């Protein structure tokens, strides 16, 4: 890449880093919420919740 | 309404340190700037004016927190929101008074300050006009930040972060007007801009200040 390779790769790597960083942070956030929800659903019995609905 | 004006005026006059501090700060800043960087051989290159404007910005920033602080902590502010027919006008007045003790006073003394900074005589008039038109914006935009941070014990750094980016246009246009060769409105468009920003912030900022203070009062 006629001597500019370092700069180009640096930019693309930074972009990948930020895209994947955001993607995984959001995914883990969603997982965490789902996990805590299913945990609390476990704790209440299912019929208990059904009563509230 | 008259008694409200009287009270605001009294509050300013009796709180002498609030009047002296900003002006003293700018003078000290000018002193330090000269000790730190001025070299007498060089001719005037405009950076002194920029420095003066930065000092005015910071002086205003330092005085911002006190715009509502005393009234908030003593409970006057909640009385204003509960009892007043139009809190809007009173808040407008408060910010105006804050401007009187910072921007207005500094503008009045600006010829002296500018001379101390080595600004040539021809530019003293421009500097005065630019400061007079530009500084209300600083107070009104700054008061938006102050209205949001007044409920937090010490919001100093946060206030600077919120407010300083908004000061950029005033700094740029203000310095430009100060440096211009003539003061005729038709010849410098930056003066138009300074006017426009000033009028816009005078009319729009009070609404944001009102909302900000409501948030701070609800935090209490």
């Amino acid at each position, binding site marked *: *890449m*006629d001597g*500019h390779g370092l*700069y*180009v790769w640096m*930019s*693309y790597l*930074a*972009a*990948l880093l*930020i895209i994947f*960083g*955001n*993607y995984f*942070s*959001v*995914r883990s*956030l*969603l997982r*965490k*919420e*789902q996990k*805590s*929800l*299913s945990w*609390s*659903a*476990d704790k*209440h019995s*299912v019929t208990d*919740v*059904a009563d*509230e*609905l | 309404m008259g008694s409200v004006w009287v009270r605001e005026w009294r509050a300013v006059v009796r709180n002498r340190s609030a009047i002296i501090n900003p002006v003293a700060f700018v003078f000290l800043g000018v002193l330090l700037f000269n000790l730190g960087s001025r070299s007498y051989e060089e001719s005037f290159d405009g950076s002194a004016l920029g420095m003066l404007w930065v000092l005015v910005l910071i002086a205003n920033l330092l005085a911002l927190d006190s715009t509502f602080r005393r009234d908030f902590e003593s409970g006057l502010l909640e009385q204003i929101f509960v009892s007043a027919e139009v809190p809007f006008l009173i808040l407008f007045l408060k910010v105006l008074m804050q401007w009187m003790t910072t921007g207005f006073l500094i503008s009045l003394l600006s010829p002296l300050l500018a001379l101390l900074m080595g600004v040539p005589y021809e530019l003293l008039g421009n500097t005065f006009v630019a400061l007079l038109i530009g500084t209300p914006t600083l107070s009104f*935009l700054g008061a*938006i930040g102050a209205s*949001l*941070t007044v409920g*937090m014990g010490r*919001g100093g750094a*946060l206030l600077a*972060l*919120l407010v*300083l*980016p*908004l000061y*950029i*246009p005033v700094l*740029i*246009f203000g310095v*430009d007007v100060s440096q211009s060769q003539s003061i005729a409105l038709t010849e410098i468009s*930056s003066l138009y*801009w300074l006017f426009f*920003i000033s009028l816009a912030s005078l009319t*729009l900022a009070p609404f*944001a200040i009102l*909302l900000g203070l409501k*948030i701070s009062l*609800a*935090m209490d």
Partner: protein
Amino acid sequence: MKIKELWHRLGSPRWFFYYSGAWVRFFGVFALILLSVGFVWGLLFAPPEQYQGNSFRIFYIHLPAAILCQSLYLAMGVGGFVLYVWRMKLADILIAACLPLGMSLTVLALFTGAVWGKPTWGTWWEWDGRIVSTTVLLFLYIGIFAIREAISDSELRGKASGLVAMVGMINIPIIKYSVDWWTTLHQPATFTLTEKPAMPIEMWLPALVMVIGFYFFAAHNVLTRMRAEILRREAKTAWVKKLAVKMV
């Protein structure tokens, strides 16, 4: 009438959660396709630029990042407006969801700008109008972030950050204009390489693919973050509990 109804339903987190699911998948799939195509195209197949050579490939990253960080701030400002006019809690969730992505894309735009500047202008940093405005934008983002950190009550936090976002949104054009004004005063524009009007189609097409891909990615990212936040806030409501029972 129908639009009004739709608008109010959109304000309900529950309705939003149900209907955003399909959109998230849609945006996710297309973001993946477009970004993969765009990355490979920009990196390997797009022709080198006449003067800048291969360093022009940075443009394919820099442009979408710079566009997106402004769009996301705009979204936050609009969110603030909606929050005040319709008192929609979803708008606060939107602001919170745009913040991390917008901030990181602003950093990316600044970083790629600097990396691009080194081979083309010979310097990492230049006090150029666009760079300065982007830096200011970063500080505006940090301001919103800081005020959200400083307020503990969730409703007031939303209102305060919405107000700051609105004030910022109104000020951004003025700041941009003033900074441009300042640059033209202090240094005649020496580099206008990106603004050459006649960019060949082989060069702007990958840029277009990247911009759309970034938009889709942002939509996916923001919507998913909003969904997670809705689950957290509404954890005690019946519909989320019902959802949780289904998930077990």
